[in-house]
């Protein structure tokens, strides 16, 4: 159950990620699933990186983007639920880091909701890579990459 003050942070045990040109790109190194979040997604992931709460995220987004607080709250609640389901983020006991205020000095940017794009076709391509410690016994899906036949 996600409460406004629950702290979430990236699932560093399995996830590698980076933000490039406002887009968050993530890979689950245990199964090869990879993800993208565009729109406000890069900013959201950067906030999540150090540990944050729903309340903090909603506050930071409404400060940075030209959007109604209720719209942001609805979008973010849905998004974070999906991030938890995909094991991209986990609940954390560590305190969140405050998101620096942008102060609104340059005006709010147009808001584009972030959606999580999920891609599952790379698992087998990554099967030979050494597993992270603790991930040795997680089986691959057994599915061939899209476009590859098995003989």
């Amino acid at each position: 159950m996600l409460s406004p003050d629950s702290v979430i942070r990236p699932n560093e045990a399995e996830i590698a990620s980076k933000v490039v040109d406002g887009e968050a790109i993530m890979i689950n190194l245990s199964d090869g699933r990879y993800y993208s979040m565009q729109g406000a997604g890069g900013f959201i992931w950067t906030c999540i990186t150090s540990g944050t709460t729903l309340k903090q995220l909603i506050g930071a987004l409404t400060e940075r983007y030209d959007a109604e607080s209720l719209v942001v709250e609805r979008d973010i609640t849905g998004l974070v639920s999906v991030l938890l389901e995909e094991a991209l983020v986990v609940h954390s006991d560590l305190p969140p880091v405050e998101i620096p205020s942008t102060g609104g000095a340059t005006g709010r940017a147009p808001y584009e909701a972030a959606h999580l794009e999920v891609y599952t076709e790379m698992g087998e391509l990554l099967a030979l890579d050494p597993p992270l410690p603790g991930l040795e016994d997680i089986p691959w899906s057994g599915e061939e990459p899209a476009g590859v036949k098995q003989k």
Partner: protein
Amino acid sequence: MSCIVPAYNAELYLPFALDSILSQTLPPYELIVVDDGSTDGTAGVLESYQGRVTVLTGPNQGSGPARNRGIAAASGDFLSFLDADDLWLPTKLERQMARFAARPELGVSVTMVRNFWIPELAYEAERHAGKRFAGPLPGYGGTTLLARADVFATIGDFSTITFAEDTEWFTRVIDAGVEVEMIDEVLVLRRIHQGNQSFVHSDQLSGALLEVVRRRLVRKRFAAGLNQQ
């Protein structure tokens, strides 16, 4: 059919790799070893194979550029690759070439791989025993692949994303619709030792894979954009 082996400080295991190529039931027409600026006894090992291998030398540039130098020098219509610390089972090339004969549309053949640990890493082998990393694994990499030479002409060479240059190449091949087939049998053995690049540099491997994925997303979106026009 040409075989290309990139080799960097490979004196310990290179003889085993080369012997596994030369004892293939269907040996390659030419065997090219790219000595990628080795500072150990690799050159001496290669001298003992004089007359049986073509050696290219040069400053150290990494395995991607080394493989590419081999591609440029190769004359075969088919190109195969083996890492200097790995082994092929004796029928590997024969089995793959049979697939190309059966399927003219096939562009790339790969096989399953089994890892094996050097004796000094027996505790690691024990740790993985019964788990996925010790079992047969799909080998989409530069140690299993055998491709028609014209696939490289169309798709391009290996990139310079160190530690993930073969994964990146496969994403381009698959995204371009080239026919790729996996032979569901272990025909390649990968040696796990202290020098394995991807083990030593796991943070850089993650970074490299993120770049591979980023490029794939760019291609997908470009293709989707074209489809909408």
